[in-house]
């Protein structure tokens, strides 16, 4: 055998990160989903400029709009986490700092997403 890799490891194709191309693939899937969702989001934000909270509440309380805003929040924060992870991977080279920053990013993204989703549900339930 000319390689240190076992045949099983080779056929699994997971590499040293043990997750294969999962990160790359998730980044792309969320990016594709965000193409229509960002266009919708831009349409909504511009459509709410100069209106009142009544307009915003009524618009976001509509089930379709609440679902789309929820999807936009989930996909964009998932994409954000994957992107920020790459920034840390590229520039932070000590294991302790890397783990610390990745945890801070993960918790911040989850906290932001949970806050968004709670507000969306609250608006829809008002």
């Amino acid at each position, binding site marked *: 055998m000319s390689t240190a890799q076992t045949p099983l490891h080779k056929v699994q194709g997971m590499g040293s990160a043990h997750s294969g191309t999962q990160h790359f693939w998730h980044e792309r899937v969320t990016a594709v989903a965000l193409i229509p969702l960002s266009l919708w989001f831009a349409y909504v934000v511009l459509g709410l400029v100069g209106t009142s909270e009544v307009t915003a*509440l009524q618009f976001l309380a509509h089930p379709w709009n609440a679902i789309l805003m929820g999807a936009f929040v989930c996909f964009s924060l998932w994409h954000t986490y994957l992107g920020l992870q790459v920034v840390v991977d590229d520039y932070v080279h000590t294991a302790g700092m890397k783990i610390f920053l990745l945890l801070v990013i993960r918790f911040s993204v989850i906290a932001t997403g949970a806050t968004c989703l*709670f507000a969306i549900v609250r608006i829809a339930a008002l």
Partner: protein
Amino acid sequence: MADNPQRPLASTRPLSPHMTIYRWPVTMMTSITHRFTGVGLALGAVILAWWLVCISNGPEGWQKFHAVSDTPIGLLVLFGLTWSLIYHFLSGIRHLAWDLGYGFDKRVAERNSVIIFALSIVAALAVFAAAWTGQGGYLK
């Protein structure tokens, strides 16, 4: 240290070219800007959360958000986020095209870089001009 035979060699050898030596190609600028706008949009996500919470709080919340967003600094941040989202959107589509194998030709890549920069600035200005001249607010 002194008896390390590699040390004097290492210090006299030329280093491989570094970022500060290269003339910045436009494709390098677009790559850095893609990352920069991505990090900016991560902060924008926190503002999005605050915006949604403010809306859910009714009239006082709406006023609280606008008390901050309608200031010069607030508008500057919102313009920065608008441009960042448009830039990251356009540049992201190019990344997806690259994944499919398109647009790697040097001339094409440089041309597209200029197009993405120019288009993102024009589109961001157009969005703000539309909001400024009362073209927004159509969801009423």
